[in-house]
């Protein structure tokens, strides 16, 4: 009975913090639209219109006879999710450096609620941005061949990856303790790792040193899963690999974040 009450209070506190973060996101809407939607849209347009001709011809078999935009969009969607890391880490850092977190710590509030709110809103923002970028992709000629069941799987994979990266960003935000640090340490996630994956070109086409990393890193597993689902290709075991990566990243990041949060004040 006590455990149940504790659970209900924890859920209520987390919902309150989520309410707070949603209000924050609304207040910072213009900023978020630029970083979460405009940046991936620009990447989409650049790679499709400017570089797409050559890249598409170079793909050969990997494109399966489709246009380059169909190859590109799954990667852009993963980049969109990753683009949400910076704002999340920065928001967490700013919360930890202000007096507000001390107020929360002196109240009988569930310890994990503040982080749960940050992670929850982060996932929401990533999903909304991914949906918006998908809409733009459809406008510029993206033609997915996914079935209804595939779409459910796609939303599930995007949500799982968002959840994993949101916890990772929260942990980075807690560990860095400065806005510049939070921004700097999430930059590899949102910018470097997508390039070193199958986002724009197949990992197999990369130089030997990078190839192994690109072929085996989590972004590639997620991108390949989405690409298979969106283009109607056989998916094989890749979705399980992608989900395993998401679970591993989420678990490690969660433990790291909790440790950092406890360490927060001395």
């Amino acid at each position: 009975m006590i455990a149940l009450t504790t659970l209900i209070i924890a859920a209520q506190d987390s919902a309150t913090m989520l309410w707070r973060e949603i209000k924050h996101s609304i207040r910072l809407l213009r900023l978020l639209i630029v970083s979460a939607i405009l940046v991936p849209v620009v990447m989409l347009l650049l790679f499709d219109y400017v570089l797409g001709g050559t890249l598409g011809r170079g793909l050969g078999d990997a494109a399966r006879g489709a246009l380059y935009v169909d190859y590109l969009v799954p990667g852009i969607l993963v980049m969109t999710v990753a683009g949400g890391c910076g704002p999340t880490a920065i928001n967490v850092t700013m919360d930890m450096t202000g007096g507000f977190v001390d107020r929360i710590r002196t109240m009988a509030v569930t310890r994990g609620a503040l982080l749960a709110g940050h992670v929850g809103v982060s996932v929401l923002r990533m999903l909304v941005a991914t949906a918006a970028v998908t809409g733009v992709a459809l406008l510029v000629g993206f033609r997915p061949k996914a079935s209804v069941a595939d779409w459910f799987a796609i939303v599930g994979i995007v949500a799982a990856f968002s959840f994993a990266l949101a916890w990772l960003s929260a942990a980075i935000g807690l560990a860095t303790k400065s806005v510049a640090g939070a921004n700097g340490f999430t930059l590899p996630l949102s910018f470097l790792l997508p390039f070193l994956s199958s986002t724009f070109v197949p990992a197999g086409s990369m130089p030997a040193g990078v190839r192994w990393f690109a072929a085996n890193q989590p972004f590639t597993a997620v991108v390949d899963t989405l690409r298979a689902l969106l283009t109607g290709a056989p998916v094989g075991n890749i979705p399980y690999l992608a989900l395993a990566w998401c679970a591993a990243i989420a678990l490690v990041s969660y433990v790291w974040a909790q440790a950092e949060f406890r360490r927060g004040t001395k």
Partner: protein
Amino acid sequence: MNAMTKRETRIAVSVNGLRKAYGKKVALDGVDLSIGEGEVFALLGPNGAGKTTVVRILSTLIPADAGTASVMGHDLHREAGAVRALIGVTGQFSAVDNLLTGEENLHLMGRLLHLPPTERRARAAQLLERFDLVAAARQTPATYSGGMTRRLDIAMTLMGRPRLIFLDEPTTGLDPRSRQIMWQIIRDLVADGVTILLTTQYLEEADQLADRIVVLDHGRIVAEGTPEELKRRIPGAHIRLRFADVASLDAAARELREGARDDKELVLRVPNEGGIRSLREVLARLGDDVAVDDLSIHTPDLDDVFFAVTGNQPEEKTR
């Protein structure tokens, strides 16, 4: 609450042998405190004396290295949750959410305190009214003055009707008018029966508000008592006489023999331990021939106390 705990909670805060060090720097070096319910208790001291460390420990933010402490009968370490439900903290640094409006900030507190929605709204409206924030309720604190932000901060603390409130330097950085308003807010809280632990580096503030004062210096208690007791402990009562010229000052110094003279200011300070009787005596000895420009009677203030108990002048404060 049964009769047993009710009797025990007559003491709001009890602290024994509190120690805290940050690396090699000792912040608290064995502090004992006992604060009764309904009391305004001031921790007075310069920057770095350990005031904020006491507040951070007692408000469950950081653990002490040694010593025991209880708040309203709950052990700080073992029953942190129970302590948190009874206290309210307004720290030195603004703890308002700058992206939420004033009203939303209060509602956030109400939600975290699990107040029913009707009570939450009523309490928020009442506090906005009480702290003169109705017109600014729909704006974010980015548009607020320092005094308004501090009032919102305290209003947020009061959403939960805490029985013990920690006010860590509540008027630091405020203009004189906002300071007066804050003092009135604190007096009103006391009238409601709330216990207050106040830290300040303003001696005047402790004198104005506190029932009891503890003077902290380098993590140790160097003096303790009511403002009156502290003032009585130290010499410093004197009559200050200012003269029109050096000749009058010379004449007066000859007649009175004791006292400290300041030739630049043309001032003579005469010890005045006997009140009106010694004042009359001083005037009689001066006679009608010595022209006194100005006369004032000085009772010691807490600056004198600080000097007497620590041997240091408190650092110059900028207000």
